[in-house]
């Protein structure tokens, strides 16, 4: 765990089930409990059928890099210490309309700069890992697929 990182509010009323699934090592995506359409980020109401019912669909955790940037300082101190690092948008293989922001790292819990950020390319196959960033917070990160 690295001090000073920004943490998600794991009690957020729309997103809490996502973060608790991460803590359990599972990647889930919100879908409408009535019409079944998936949406990310989660919402209170389904924009297609206006249902308030939700369900959380388990995902395989495989995806592909949709875009990548490499931030350099000035950044907040905890991030400056790790810069330059990669930030990626990953499109999920199970449902390519669903995208998540994260980092490609060497392994769960590794630093943001644990791999050379310039090696990450759009189209890279990645798989999810869950990094513990606080006593009660796990976030989804990504590693290059097929690398143990």
């Amino acid at each position, binding site marked *: 765990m690295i001090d000073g*990182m*920004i*943490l*998600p*509010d794991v009690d*957020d009323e729309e*997103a809490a089930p996502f973060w608790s699934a991460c803590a359990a090592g599972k990647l889930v995506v919100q879908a409408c409990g009535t019409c079944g359409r998936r949406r*990310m*980020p989660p919402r209170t109401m389904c*924009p297609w059928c206006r249902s308030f019912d939700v369900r959380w669909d388990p995902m395989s955790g495989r995806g592909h890099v*949709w*875009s*990548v*940037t*490499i*931030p*350099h300082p000035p*950044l*907040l101190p905890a*991030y400056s210490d*790790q*810069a*330059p*690092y990669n*930030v990626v*948008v990953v499109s999920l293989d199970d449902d390519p*309309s*669903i*995208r*998540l*922001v*994260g*980092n490609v790292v060497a392994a769960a819990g590794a630093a*943001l700069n644990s791999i050379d*950020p310039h090696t990450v390319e*759009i189209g890279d196959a990645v798989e999810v890992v869950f990094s513990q*960033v606080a006593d009660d917070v796990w*976030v989804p990160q990504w590693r290059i697929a097929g690398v143990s």
Partner: protein
Amino acid sequence: MTAQLIKDRTAIAGIGQTEFAKTLDRSEKRLALEAISAALDDAGVAPAEVDGLSSYTLETTEEFEIARNLGLGDITFFSQVGYGGGAGCGVVGQAAMAVASGQCRVAVAWRSRKRGSAASRPWSQVGERVGRHQQWTRPFGLLRPVDEIALLARRYFHEFGGTREQLASVAIAVRHHANRNPGAMMHEKTLTLDQYLEARWISEPLCLFDNCLESDGAGAVVVTTVERARDGARPPVVIHSFAQSIPQQHQVMTNYFDADPLRGPSWACASRLWANADVTPDDVDVAQLYDAFSPLVPLSLEGYGFCARGEGLAFCADGNLELDGRLPTNTSGGGMSEAYVHGFNLIVEAARQIRGESCSQVAGAEVSLVTSGEGVPTSALVLTKDRR
């Protein structure tokens, strides 16, 4: 028939601004009052005649403070628009709607910004735990607006092709304009392709020169009926068309989650803007396109219909933003080389072009487009000469 209620009914009767600098030793309130005062004097309008106020939600000085300092009349319309750099044309357009609909007769719109102000740099103020849309990006080190736009820039390069050399043409063109504008912060600093390519990274693929300046300063305009403006001190700058947009399924700044993230808010805004206008992109003589970050310029060129999807960057690289190009753009130097005051200097410059007063004047300019922030809920205005 739409938009007949505001088309050509109102005009910018006066413009005003402070000087722009990295640090000005006056408060945001003081700067706002200076800019509004200058705009009223320019218009030949007495403060007591003002009955409408329109500003950004980021503004730190409340309307009643503005009114009681300047000695304004009874205010019967006041309104604010959110989303930072997306607000500018919306602020002016809402003033125009209020005048056109009779809710007020003379409105003032303004923006005053100091870079040290907490409200001006929200990214540096986040708490240790974030909710809302930020929880999906901030924990992963996507902290600043430039990081958020860099992800779109990289994807644009991937989908449509594009190089840093092409992107450099945006920063270099607006710098050329600033070099002709003694009031621009970068007036005396030239920028070459080599300097651009050697500059330090901020968020790859974006370097220092892909970013707007950090500035203190303020700008203001006076909006009134075309009839009242004709009695003023300066020729009216007619507000021909106005639009705002929050496109469907949009997420502010970090819009990576909808079907087509490179089709930003400018598309929906443009659709309303041109539907309400008697002119088309082909008729536009000069443009001020919001340039907090250089990739927003090609994205806006595509959204507002100046080139086809994926061709915006090549349009820039072909020299079209220069004074002798197809669409001279950000002719005061824009956010990247004149000053960054959430795009209000772009509005002032768009009006200046219609009045024939720009330091990079487009000869005979009759149709002037100005846009606000792409990537956030946005807005745009088409300004024209008074064709009475």
